[in-house]
């Protein structure tokens, strides 16, 4: 399975909690909390990167690297 820019952020962290560290690094420091989980439902990976002024292609790469165990 490959994470793409169009995935909801909530889906990413639900399916792959090991990605929390990557998201923490770009500024999402509390995605474990219920409120932030709700907020994660509202944005895609691309939009999440934009919220933090991060590069979305790089974020997708980093997320996929983690879920493929290459981190």
């Amino acid at each position, binding site marked *: 399975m490959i994470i793409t820019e169009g995935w909801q952020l909530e889906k990413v962290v639900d399916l792959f909690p090991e990605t929390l560290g990557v998201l923490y690094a770009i500024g999402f420091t509390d995605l474990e*909390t219920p*409120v932030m989980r709700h*907020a994660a439902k509202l944005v895609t990976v691309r939009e999440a990167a934009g919220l933090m002024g991060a590069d979305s292609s790089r974020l997708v790469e980093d997320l996929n690297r983690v879920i493929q165990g290459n981190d």
Partner: protein
Amino acid sequence: MSKESEKMNANGPVVVDARWLKDHIEDPEIRIIDTRSSIDYRKGHVKNSLNIQISDLVKAKRGLPAMCSSKEDIESLLSSKGIGNQTFVIAYDNFGGIFASRLLWTLEYYGHERIGIFNGSIKRWLDAGEEFTRKIPKVQKTDFCANPNERRTASIDWVLGHIDDPKVKFLDVRTKDEFAGKTAYGARGGHIPRAVNVHWLEAIDTTTGAFKSNDELKAIYESKGITRGKEIVTYCWMGLRASHGYSMLRVLGYPFVRNYDASWSEWGEIESLAIER
């Protein structure tokens, strides 16, 4: 509120950047509020800030998941945080201002219009070379007196009463798919008749995470007929994203803006109400 802050705040809420926040961090007339989770707040926060979580601002009511907390609850909450009726409040979060905006709207609804919002997510504070602290400031309890301003909110009855009013524009800040009914959270998908769609994230410059400039924001909203002379009603699914749209319009100086707090979590569930797709 200092004279400088008062002048800044004369035309509505203000947007502050890291430099401004740093310069005013010790100002006793300013209360900085961290609207992230308490867990995140305890890990580290802007010096002299106090924490108000979203769950402090909303309550489930009438089967609706996130409605504005009561006057008494808000008075008690703000008083406990040392916010008086003259205090200038600066709110920040780590989600593009969406939570800070909810505080902004709540304060304006309860008659407190001395407020500013940090420009984007608070990560930008750290990116500017500033630091967090774990020290929680002690503040003196105040006696905040709320004065609800019904012109800042829209009930379902108000919306129905103005559904054909040409002076009123409904601003749906959900995604295009939610607006079109392709994605539905709840019983029905679609939007309120005559509503226009500007996704809340269009207000964010995705290269920096900051809000777009006032000129850019104005152009985006005006292209959809959202103009200063109209009465604007923002809505989303349950009033969170709508608060962001509300904030952006208020920052632009739009005087007549309401938040339909119940939003689609109410409208979408009532079969007898008209929808468009």
